[in-house]
């Protein structure tokens, strides 16, 4: 380490080149971390789901409803301790028609089913009391500048007309995978307005023993097999996973781009290191003459490459981590809980080490093997 001073002095010689190279590495790792976080966030969403919750869908198709009369039969099924249901509403708000998710839910049982949806007790009671009220996520409230007690009007696309709701509560999810930009309102209000009672979009069940999930699901599906509406029951996790697969080959795409980015920057860094080493041929010869060993010279070049790569990595990875944290980014609701994981950071550092080896190796070996006499002669 006594040569650190020398390495730093070398880096300071071409300040602009060092700065540009470090900046390229930082940008590359920033991109790398961002792309990988898209993948990890999707994976996490796919794996999310309490093992105690099952989702019951209409077997014919996701968008087709299930009779509400199934609720009693589901509640009495063996191993099921609680039942709730919900409907997708599909409304639009405001002139720019920004999309956000609205669900018509059975309020008491739904909030009991999802303890991850946290809201103050008084707001919860106010919501439960008033049929035309709704609760919204904190992000949604901030986004549209709503406040508690405000009436908002939403245009229905699935259920035509203008729908007015009073905001009675603001929730914050205790698990970042749950969207904080949803709106929940009373299922009974939906039935009342549409005049088409008795239909649920899907059911969510709580079961006593997660180990029996498959058996309970099968019993339920068998029971409804010959009814007007056959069901398909699966764990909440499988349900979420099926949504995640709908993105298609996103992981592959992000991975490919990530590799291209890293490789492109490798070229930039390697080029910079090579240019530096070529310019210093004479110096290296002098150092060797005054007694520096081949191994030391090899180490010096590697150290230089390492400092460039690591500085860039710290800036890029740290920047990504802080930026997404500070801006509370969630890709318009598509990627809730977008956060650079520790795993990604470690992988980023591994990429950095590869970068250092690949960019430093050729110049370092060249420095170590340099024949002194020829090199000195060439300078003259």
């Amino acid at each position, binding site marked *: 380490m006594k040569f650190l001073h020398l390495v730093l002095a070398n880096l300071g010689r071409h300040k*602009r*080149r060092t700065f*540009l*190279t470090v*900046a*390229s590495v930082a*940008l*590359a790792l*920033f*991109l790398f971390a961002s*792309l990988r976080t898209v993948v990890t966030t999707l994976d996490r969403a796919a794996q999310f789901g309490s093992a105690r919750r099952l989702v019951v869908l209409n*077997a*014919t*198709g*996701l*968008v*087709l409803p299930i009779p509400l009369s199934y609720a009693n039969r589901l509640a009495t099924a063996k191993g099921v301790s609680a039942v709730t249901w919900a409907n997708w509403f*599909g409304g*639009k708000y405001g002139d720019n028609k920004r*999309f956000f998710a609205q669900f018509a839910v059975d309020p008491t049982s739904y909030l009991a089913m999802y303890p991850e949806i946290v809201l103050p007790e008084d707001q919860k009671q106010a919501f439960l009391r008033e049929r035309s009220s709704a609760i919204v996520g904190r992000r949604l409230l901030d986004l549209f500048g709503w406040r508690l007690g405000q009436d908002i009007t939403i*245009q*229905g*696309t*699935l259920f*035509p*007309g203008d729908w007015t709701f009073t905001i009675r509560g603001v929730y914050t999810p205790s698990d970042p995978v749950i969207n904080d930009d949803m709106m929940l309102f009373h299922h009974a209000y939906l039935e009342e307005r549409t005049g088409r009672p008795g239909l649920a979009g899907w059911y969510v069940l709580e079961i006593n023993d997660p180990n029996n999930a498959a058996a309970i699901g099968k019993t339920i599906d068998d029971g409804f097999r010959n009814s007007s509406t*056959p069901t*398909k029951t*699966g764990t909440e996790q*499988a349900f979420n*996973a*099926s949504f995640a*697969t*709908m*993105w*298609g*080959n*996103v992981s592959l*795409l992000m991975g490919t*781009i990530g590799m*291209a*980015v890293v*490789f*492109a*920057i490798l*070229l*930039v860094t*390697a*080029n*910079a290191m*090579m*240019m530096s080493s070529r*310019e210093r041929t004479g110096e290296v010869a002098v150092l060797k003459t005054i007694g520096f060993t081949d191994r030391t010279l090899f180490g010096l070049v590697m150290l230089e490459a390492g400092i460039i790569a690591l500085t860039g990595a710290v800036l890029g990875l740290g920047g990504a981590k802080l930026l997404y944290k500070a801006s509370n980014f969630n890709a318009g609701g598509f990627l809730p809980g977008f956060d650079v994981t520790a795993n990604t950071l470690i992988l980023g550092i591994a990429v950095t080490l590869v970068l250092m080896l690949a960019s430093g190796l050729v110049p370092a070996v060249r420095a170590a093997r340099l024949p002194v006499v020829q090199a000195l002669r060439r300078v003259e």
Partner: protein
Amino acid sequence: MKVPLSYNARSLLQRPVSTALTALGIALVVAVFIGMLALANGFRSALTRTGSSQNVLVLRRGADSELSSNMDRQSASILTSSPHVATGADGRPMVSPELYVVIPLPRAGGTDTTALANVVVRGVSPAAWTVRHNVGVEAGRKPESGKAEICVGKKLAGRFDHTAVGETLRFGGRNWTVVCQFSANGSAFESEIWGENEQFIPVFRGELFQSLTFRLKDPAAFAEAKRTLEADRRLTVDVYRESDFYTEQSQLLGRILQILAILITSIMAIGAIFGAINTMYAAVASRSPEIAVLLTLGFHPRSVLASFLAESALIALVGGIVGALLALPINGIVTSTTNWASFSEIAFSFRVTPGLLLAGICFALVMGLVGGFFPAWRAARLPVVQALR
């Protein structure tokens, strides 16, 4: 007087490794740029091609997709008798009241039950095959009226089990015989299953259609048709030109893909530009005596500036061409994603167009020129005496 371009070309060949590394860096950026835009392009074009400008799509008022719309038989028959509807060769109106549902189908080869994809099932009238003029049966024959027969879009075949002609596909609690496969000019229809609407209605949603599509008698009279139908008091409908409707559906995801492409590639481009700057500065520094000689010989500093800019642009051009060649093989690769407007899976091909290749190469040139500017500026302002000494 201009410095000849061959001077730059020879200089580049003097330092092959450095040139190649810089060019390759730019090539990768260009390849990613073209690749991502080809994805956005392919998705857009699949949906844009779905609609025809001669057709009119009618949905329930306020519905923003076929999935969220519904239409009763009475409305459908009022629409069918509208004077704006063209008459087919058989003397019947060219109208297709359609049922539109999304069903879960297991992907081919998967035993994993979670690997379900949502596939569109469209119940059409016999006239639909002529109303949609880009639809053509490729193998087999059209489904017969009154039978449980279906026709499968070309892009579904192979990606899902039991979709070959002659096989039986089970959905909606019934078995359906696959009697044909159809193509539709690469559009989103190719990711759908078609059958007779009257066969599907009892199985799925009861006595309701989702949408109605008809051929305009006079393609120029769309505005007139839209006005009369939307003003008709017996109907509560929104009327769209079919092509506009599907183009609109591609906007959300198409735009996301495009923004993503530009965001990612511009960050990459900055890195590549830094690389070019490094390379060119090093070139200028190592060739200062040469540059000084050029200036002494009477070349104007402006010519020297232009010469070094050209050198940088030349590296970038090589990179751009290599990048375009790297991206070219992805043209036509089929990928799939979910069309969030219909909640169903849609398969489409990457589309690398000549315009896109050109854009990629221009992008490379811009990188080269930006990266080369400051080094070239330094070259032009070189103090001759010092450099020669």
